C-alpha cells in the first residue's frame, strides 16, 4: 500500500488501512512464499489524462487500483471488480476496457483516459453534458463508466466495427437505439437509467453527424 498522505483522514482511508493490516496479518499463509512477506514490486510509467506518472507498485495492482488508490483519480469506479459491470471502464490508447481486469504493469507507456480527462465541471465533455441534460443516471455510481463507454461506442460505430445486432456485416453499422443498447450491454445500471442513457448518447451522436 503506497502512502495515502495526500488524502485527508476519511472513512475511506480508515477502511483502506484496515484492509491493508488484514492482508499483512494473513501473509504467513504462503501468499509471499518467495521472500517472506515481500510482495514483488515493479517500476513502470502510465500517461494518464496527458500527464506522465512513474509508479512502483505491487505487481498485483490492477489498472483500476493504480488509478484510484495510487493516482487518486477516484472518478473511475470499482463495482464488481470482475469485468461484469463496466463501472471501471476507461480508455486505453483510445479503446475502452475494464480497468479491473488488467494489471497496471501491463500498461507501461500506455495512454489512459479516465472520466477526469474527458471533461471538467467547468468544461464538460459533450457526453457528460448530454448525460446531465437527459438525466442519464440516478445514483451516479455507474456513470463514469457509462460515459467512457459511450464515447468509445460512437468511435467504434464510426470505425465500422459491427455488433451482434448489425443486420449486414458488410455495411456501415447504423446508429440507432438497438445498436446502442447492444453496444452498451457491458455497462450495468442498477438504477435502470438505460432509456435516458440511450437518449443522451443519441443526442451526442446526432450533433456529431
Amino acid at each position, binding site marked *: 500500500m503506497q502512502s495515502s498522505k495526500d488524502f485527508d483522514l476519511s472513512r475511506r482511508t480508515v477502511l483502506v488501512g484496515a484492509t491493508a493490516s488484514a492482508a499483512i496479518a494473513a501473509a504467513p499463509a504462503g501468499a509471499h512464499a518467495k521472500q517472506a512477506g515481500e510482495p514483488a514490486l515493479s517500476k513502470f510509467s502510465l500517461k494518464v489524462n496527458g500527464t506522465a506518472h512513474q509508479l512502483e507498485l505491487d*505487481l498485483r495492482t490492477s489498472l483500476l487500483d493504480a488509478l484510484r488508490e495510487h493516482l487518486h483519480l477516484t472518478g473511475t469506479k470499482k463495482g464488481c471488480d*470482475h*469485468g461484469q459491470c463496466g463501472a471501471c471502464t476507461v480508455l486505453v490508447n483510445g479503446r475502452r476496457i475494464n480497468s479491473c481486469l*488488467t494489471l497496471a504493469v501491463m500498461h507501461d507507456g500506455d495512454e489512459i483516459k479516465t472520466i477526469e480527462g474527458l471533461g471538467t465541471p467547468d468544461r464538460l465533455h459533450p457526453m457528460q453534458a448530454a448525460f446531465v441534460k437527459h438525466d442519464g443516471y440516478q445514483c451516479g455510481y455507474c456513470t463514469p463508466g457509462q460515459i467512457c463507454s459511450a464515447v468509445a461506442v460512437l468511435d467504434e460505430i464510426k470505425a465500422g*466495427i459491427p455488433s451482434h445486432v448489425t443486420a449486414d456485416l458488410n455495411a456501415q453499422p447504423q446508429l440507432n437505439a438497438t445498436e446502442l443498447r447492444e453496444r452498451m450491454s*457491458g455497462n450495468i445500471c442498477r438504477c435502470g437509467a438505460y432509456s435516458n442513457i440511450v437518449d443522451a448518447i443519441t443526442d451526442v451522436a446526432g450533433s456529431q453527424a
Partner: protein
Amino acid sequence: MKSFTYERAQSPADAAAAAARTEGAKFIAGGTNLLDLMKLEIETPTHLIDVNALALDKIEATPDGGLRIGALVRNTDLAADARVRRDYAVLSRALLAGASGQLRNKATTAGNLLQRTRCPYFYDTNQPCNKRLPGSGCAAIGGFSRQHAIVGTSKACIATHPSDMAVAMRVLDATVDTVQPDGKTRSIALDDFYRLPGETPHIETTLTKGELITAVTLPKPVGGTQIYRKVRDRASYAFALVSVAAIVQRDGSGRVAMGGVAHRPWHVAAADSEIPRGARAVTARLLADAATTHENAFKVKLAERTLAAVLAKAKG
C-alpha cells in the same frame, strides 16, 4: 490474489522455454479470464509471462487461400476484419455474440480458446470441483445444473466450454498453430485440441507443458450461408444455454457445431450428412448419447429448435 513474479517475453520460442522451465508459470495476454480467476485464487500462478509484445497480432492470407490469425489478435479486431466478415461470417457473428465491447477489446484469439468454464461450482472455492481441485468431486452433478453439459460428460465433470468463437472455429475446421519449448512448431486440428473431461477434467487441451499458441489458421473460404445463433438468458452479455454455428450450401449440404452443450465445441461428422433431412435428424445424431440431468434436459429440445430456426433462415 497470490503473489507472483513477472516477465515480458521477447519471442514466442523464448516464452515457451520460460514457461517450461518455470514451475507454476502461466502466459498472460488479454488477462480478462486469468485475472478474474487469480482474484478468486482459483488460478494461482507463481510467475506470469506477458506475451503481449510478441508480434502475433496480424491477420494474414495463407498461400492456399485461407487466413492465419495471430494469437494476440483481439476479439474486436478479428470480428471487424473485412475478410472475416465477408468470407467467415460465422466467426464474426460468434465473436460479436460473446462478452461485452470492453472485454472484446482486450480478449485475444488464443486466450478465448483457453478460457476456463463458467461452471458456478468451479468458481465457488467452498465446493468440490474436479477441474479446480482434482479428486475432490463434482458439486454440479446433483447440484444446480441448468447451464451444464449434456454430451461428452463424465462422472467427474459436466462443465461446458464457454467460448462462442471456438464453436465457429470448429465448424470452419480451424487448426491451432503452436511453438514448443524446444522451438519446434506444430498444427493441431481444433477437434484434437480440446479434450473431453473423462477422469481428468483439469486437463482441458492437448497442449504440452510450456507450449504456446501462436496462431489459428482457417482453411480457404467454403462459402455458403453462415449463421451463428446463440440462445441465452438475456439478450446480450451472457453465456450460451445452447448455440449453433452452421454453414449451409445451396445444395442443402452443410456443417453444424454446437456450443453450450459439452466440454468442447460439439461436432459429429455423421450429423452433418443429416442436414438435408432437417433439424430433428441432425440433432438425433449430434446429441445421440445425451446424458441429461433433471435441470438441463430442456437443452436437447432447445438445441433441436435452435437448429431448426437456423436451417429455416439458411433456406431464406
